[in-house]
């Protein structure tokens, strides 16, 4: 443990811990149940150690990797839903903890995939959580990246419009918020890609272009990306006219 405190990013220390866990002695007991309990205790202690590490350094990716390894390897697996409680605690302590958002996205995807959680209901709860986070710090990109994951690339027209309206509300309060603008552009481009065409597309395209123009001024370091996106809209427009 003291080695981890001084060099928490040295790979081999984590690796050595892993090796030790794989080779836990059978313990003092004779019967299967005692042996099992002995092993389980060692894994529980490991989870405790890694949580201490993440309290000290919440973004340590080696510690997060190690946590995933411990959770997947415990003789008695914890219910995955426990990870939702853990990540919401980490996120509650600091919205900028992208590592926790990342872990949360993986956990939810797994629970939804296995049908262990009502996807529709839980998605709405996540939008609620994000709403709070966005208003707390509209410049925190962790939150916006997670929002992008939650909406996905195949969100319905209704969902896209609803989220655009919600972000617009925040933008009205924070007119210089790059991430509000960037996100509205992203969702409007999705609308254009999947849902809107023909006469309806014209106003949307010019809307996105003026948003991109504002982004160029607000965020000059990435100006050429915004210009590339605007050109793409031109190209698409020309193509649909032909």
């Amino acid at each position, binding site marked *: 443990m003291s080695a981890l405190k001084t060099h928490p*990013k040295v790979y081999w220390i984590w*690796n050595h811990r892993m090796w030790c866990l794989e080779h836990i002695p059978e313990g003092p007991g004779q019967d299967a149940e005692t042996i099992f309990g002995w092993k389980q205790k060692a894994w529980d202690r490991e989870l405790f150690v890694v949580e201490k590490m993440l309290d000290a350094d919440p973004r340590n990716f080696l510690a*997060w*990797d190690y946590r995933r390894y411990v959770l997947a*390897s415990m003789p008695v697996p914890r219910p995955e839903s426990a990870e939702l409680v853990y990540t919401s605690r980490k996120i509650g302590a600091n919205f900028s903890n*992208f590592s926790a958002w*990342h*872990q949360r996205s993986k956990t939810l*995807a797994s629970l939804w995939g296995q049908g262990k959680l009502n996807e529709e209901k839980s998605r709405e709860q996540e939008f609620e959580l994000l709403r709070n986070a966005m208003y707390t710090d509209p410049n925190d990109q962790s939150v916006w*990246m997670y929002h992008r994951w939650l909406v996905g690339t195949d969100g319905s027209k209704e969902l896209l419009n609803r989220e655009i309206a919600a972000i617009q509300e925040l933008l009205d309060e924070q007119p210089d918020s790059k991430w509000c603008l960037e996100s509205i552009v992203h969702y409007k481009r999705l609308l254009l890609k999947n849902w809107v065409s023909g006469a309806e597309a014209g106003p949307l395209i010019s809307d996105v272009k003026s948003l991109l123009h504002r982004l160029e001024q607000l965020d000059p370091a990435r100006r050429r990306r915004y210009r590339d996106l605007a050109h793409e809209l031109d190209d698409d427009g020309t193509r649909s006219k032909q």
Partner: protein
Amino acid sequence: MDPSSSTSTTTSTSANTGAGTDKLLVEQHVAYIQKLGENKDDLTYHLTAHLRLNAVYWGFTALSILGRPDALDREEMIGFVMNCWDEEAGAFGAHPGHDAHLLSTLSAIQILVMQDAMERVDVERVVNFILSLQHPSGTFTGDRFGEQDTRFLYCAVNALSLLGRLDALDEGVLGEGVLGEEGVVDEEGVVDGEEEEKGKGRGEGREKGREKGKGKEKVVEYLQRCRNYDGGFGRKVGAESHSAQVFVCVAALAILDRLDVVDVDTLAFWLAERQLPNGGLNGRPEKLEDVCYSFWVLSALSILNKLSWIDEDKLTGFILSAQNAESGGIADRPGDMVDVFHTHFGIAGLSILGYPGLVDLDPVYCMPAHVIERRGLRKGWKALERRVG
């Protein structure tokens, strides 16, 4: 901050007290690298023994990009590399007497290729060593005890390609059993619910080995499973995106001619967002800037042909401001201790940015471009045009 090793033990000499400058201090950096090997009484010299061969690669590549490959003695360097040969394993350790490892094996091959001295290597033994470290899932460990990490996957693919033996992945040649039956930890996957049966993969499975003719496909499949919704890649399945891992995964896919696996627009957007207001690049959202990311992020952007999505002038300024005018060398950020790792990646970044007077760097292999071109290995990356100073 230092994804490929522990920065805490990387060779460092003096604190960066000199104020930044707006010019690349070529002479000072050459002198700094030349002096690195001299002071063997220095404690840090011994502490960094496990990185020694990597450090030689970093120093020599930096000198080559500065246009001064002759600044270190060729014979001495080749002699040192060959002294790192681990006869039992059939590959290179980080230091004479150390066990073979993929990281040092790649460094050794890169140095020997740059020095045009490949005839000294028993290529087939090295190929067998590398293949013996591939797991049934497709990824690699760095040595027989090591952990799986996409960094090692890149080392394997890069080294095989430099050896002209990339096809060996598909030949179904089993290694010489460098990997024992025990001690190999197959620990991946976890929360994404589609993992192979747990426990089974541990330790065993190596001898069953790779399915014949499927080595490359397995590598690509594994990389695909490491891809996250932000377009980036992590160390293993389920892990968070990190720009150093983005570089290794994208470069490995480039070598395998499988960039179709990359979601270019999403990833390039994520990479461009690594640039902070001071011009420096970070490794993940909401983290600090660091000179070594100049290479990890830029190389990936260059391979994806999206270098224009960041501000090259601000980044150039940031790298230059992390130089130490007195001692030479570049630090992770202005005012910190310089080390050879950040010196190398700072100069590599400047080359990709078209800094005047530098030699072109191949971002896929992280070696001088002319060396890679000569071997017919050049991929379709684009760097910024070299400016005239």
